[in-house]
């Protein structure tokens, strides 16, 4: 599982850094290294571009896993360079951005857009497979999530736009309901597709979503 990100347009980063001339950059050694959006190489390249803009890069770090507890330690160890900056540019996913803003009392600015939580199905190709809906139906859809794999998140079978196994929004994208149909058929479980699914509960866990483990 990876948090899938893409770098924001540089113009947007430049604009967000508008009032700040000293920047500290933080990348992440896990997901964004893997997706080449916030590993060491990308962090150094960003540093160079910021210098070209006339900014001072007070320091940089690639935190092993920006969303976990060790981040606090990494921040403490680099406190000098961080204090010397007037903002932190984060090249981790939004979870990392959150984590850093809990520990650092300075403007924390994301350099990336977090797109989805995905898995790597083929080398270098990531696909969203779960939208954390709170009411999993994978057991009845042959392990293919209709909420993420179907463009419209439909529960009761294909829409009228399904075309030779492809989705109406993009001829390159598979129609989730054709995939589900094929797999259920292979498994001899097509009855599940004949079953009526009532409207979803969109508030299984109303936002803000949280839970307490006891």
């Amino acid at each position, binding site marked *: 599982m990876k948090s899938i990100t893409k770098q924001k347009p540089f113009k947007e980063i430049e604009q967000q850094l508008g009032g700040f001339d000293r920047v500290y950059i933080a990348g992440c050694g896990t997901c964004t290294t893997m997706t080449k959006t916030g590993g060491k190489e990308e962090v150094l390249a960003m540093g160079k571009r910021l210098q070209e803009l006339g900014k001072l890069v007070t320091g940089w770090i690639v935190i092993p896993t920006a969303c976990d507890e060790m981040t606090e330690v990494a921040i403490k160890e680099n406190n000098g360079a961080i204090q010397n900056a007037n903002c932190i540019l984060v090249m981790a996913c939004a979870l990392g951005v959150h984590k850093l803003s809990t520990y650092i009392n300075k403007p924390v600015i994301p350099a990336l857009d977090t797109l989805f939580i995905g898995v790597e199905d083929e080398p270098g190709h990531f696909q969203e497979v779960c939208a954390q809906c709170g009411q999993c139906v994978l057991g009845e859809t042959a392990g293919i999530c209709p909420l993420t794999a179907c463009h419209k998140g439909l529960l009761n079978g294909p*829409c009228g736009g399904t075309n030779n196994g492809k989705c109406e929004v993009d001829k390159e994208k598979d129609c989730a309901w054709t995939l589900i149909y094929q797999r259920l058929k292979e498994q001899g479980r097509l009855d599940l597709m004949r079953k009526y699914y009532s409207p979803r509960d969109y508030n299984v866990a109303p936002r803000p979503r949280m839970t307490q483990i006891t």
Partner: protein
Amino acid sequence: MAPSFKEVLKSGKFVVTSEIGPPKGTNIEKMLHHIDLLKDKVDALNVTDHQSSVMRFPSIGGCLAIKERGGEPILQMTCRDRNRLALQAELLFAYTRGIRNVLCLTGDAVVVGDHKAAKGVFDLDSTQLLRMIRQMESGKDLGGNELDGTVEFCAGAIVTPEANPIEPQLMKFEKKVEAGAEFFQTQAIYDLDKFAKFMQYARQFPVKILAGIILLVSARMAKYMTENVPGVFVPQNLIDELAAAPKGEALNKGIEIAGRMIATIKKEAMCDGVHVMAIGKEEVVPDILKAAGLAA
């Protein structure tokens, strides 16, 4: 008083419906003209609901205009733009204004339309929408609360007889039948042999099937539809026939083809009627009906 669409469906006569596309803007002259042109020539008129996710004057507005002018409207309702509250509210409103027919659709994806950044709702799908209508008819809203005054609709849906693969489409068709669909307007069909096979299957269900007839205006359009519109296949002989039409005569050829198909469907009692779509060329629907021998 003219019979309601439900009564017409029950009567066993060959049913003819057509379609009105509302304008993008407040200039409704042309729409009203189309309504006046068609309302007495067909049994009911659909009004599209932001077709292809292109923002337009609302379906309900077109339906009210049809009603005011003495026609029988079919309210097309997609799940793309409204959640379950908004859908129910619109059904309540439609009922109080004499609208009695609803065509339940999931709706096209937002990204194929002209507001690509909009939020696609899809709180319900077409099957759930059908069931919701039946539940409202029983006096309860979708939340299970009593309604003070209920609704009654003749509810329909769509089916694509030539979808590929076909089995998921048929399973969905059956789900819609079970959900209470009374009539189906099909995606455009051009191959009557294939359609006959579909009808052999569909006949076993207690629903009325209106074959979708989309006017072809050129060989190019026919090819485009085959390549791009899901579940639509124009046989080569029809494409050739259109291509062979003298310059400026392709439209007339298309009218002739549509008329001929309708006449055959009727003569051979292949299904219960037709739904004629002349997207953007509503003017010629009377000519199609004439070519089919359905109008004077």
